[in-house]
């Protein structure tokens, strides 16, 4: 299962990477044509199923304005706020386009610390993790445009998740709390 996902990811990501290495001078329309149709977000899926992110329709929702989500990376002025804008607002397009190119899935892990050190991210302070970036960005927009904004609106909970939340079959039975609240 995991392998298939990896292959899928590769199928999606390799052409994009190749595309961006090939040159940055294409018109935005062409970039859009080359964008991945679906992206599976599963790097930390545990309590929730992976998200099948429909990139193609989000391009439509964003009215072809990639900067709405990709900040400065595609070479148009960033519409974002925050620290990155201080330096990168008017920068040309970069090779790094995927969210996880900047937002690490676990910046607090040893691996994450190592990557940050290697990249020499001296000024990249207070940058959200990948999970933080998704949930801050996606939910804020979804609230505005009436997209799904509850947890299971994007990713159904796993059984492990139900256990974690004491929900579903793991919900506390009324007799469990005979003591009540103090």
């Amino acid at each position, binding site marked *: 299962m995991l392998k298939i996902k990896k292959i899928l990811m590769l199928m999606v990501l390799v052409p994009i990477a190749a595309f961006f290495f090939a040159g940055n001078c294409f018109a935005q329309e062409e970039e859009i044509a080359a964008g991945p149709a679906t992206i599976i977000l599963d790097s930390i899926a545990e309590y929730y199923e992976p998200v099948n992110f429909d990139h193609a329709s989000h391009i439509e929702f964003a009215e072809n304005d990639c900067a709405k989500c990709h900040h400065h990376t595609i070479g148009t002025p960033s519409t974002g706020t925050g*620290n990155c*804008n201080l330096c990168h607002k008017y920068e040309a397009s970069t090779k790094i386009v995927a969210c996880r190119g900047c937002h690490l899935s676990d910046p607090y892990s040893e691996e994450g610390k190592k990557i940050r050190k290697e990249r020499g991210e001296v000024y990249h*302070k207070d940058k959200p993790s990948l999970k933080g970036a998704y*949930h801050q960005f996606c*939910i804020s927009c979804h609230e505005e445009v009436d997209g799904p904004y509850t947890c299971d609106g994007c990713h159904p909970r796993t059984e492990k998740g139900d256990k974690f939340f*004491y*929900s579903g079959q793991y919900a506390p039975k009324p007799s469990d709390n005979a003591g009540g609240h103090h």
Partner: protein
Amino acid sequence: MKKMNRRSLLKGGLAGGVIGALGLGKKAEAAGTFEGYPDRMGVLVDLTRCIGCRSCEAACNKEQKLPAPDKPFDDFSVFDEIHLGQKRRPTEKAYTIVNRYDVEGQDKPVYRKIQCNHCNEPACLSSCFVNAYTKTPEGAVMYDPKVCVGCRTCMIACPFYVPAYSYSSVLNPVVKKCIMCYDTRLKFGRRPACAEACPRETLTFGKREDLIYYARQRIKLNPGKYVNHIYGEKEVGGTSWLYLSGVPFEEVGFDTHLGNQPILNYVKEFLTIVPMVLTIWPALFAGFHLLATRKENKNKESESQK
């Protein structure tokens, strides 16, 4: 009638009154000069990010091996609960809880997470006359149930009403509160379970010093988004947990009248009189002693049973 809270009672009534009478007020001068451990960690809570998903509550329950909650963690009716005229508070079964506030002029509700703020100069610690509390260099305020005699002064002293008592054993009641996941995570440089679970990165873990910088940057770079204040930077001498908010803090349940003096300054006065009190009222001392030895005996008993 003027409303008097537990703290002002302690401050004005106990400490002030008795101190005044005994003329011991001068001893508190040195308090408030301790800069604190330089590398202590903390968590910056950004209320503008919180969506009230309660993942942090669930994570705390799991990490601290707390008993099953009364309601599932995805049951949002808890936000409407009122206990003794108040919104939910941390309890001995839940070291952290999230409350919802409907603030006028805001189209979305504002959520606020509550737990021990891990004060720089903790009132619980300084009020405890058997030294059951410690502040670790990493920033956590820890509690040792073996030392505690169950007098509950810390509950009264805490400006944030955090320590809760577990009465599961009548003879051996113990304080239960957030310990910033010290023994399972913080000690090893890992962030608390709630911070890791939060999907929105409402809870940013880092060196307290860095967090203050992040907070200032966020205020500066997002004009109009935040009120220009970092709650906990100065309050009661500073806390390890810091807060940013898009609405005035008093509208989301924060006490904005605590002042910047550590509570230590008040209770220290109170503390200096504790030995005095004990000599004045031997009966009280006997009571504490009894409690302490009872517990010791009980500990011995349970040990010998092993």
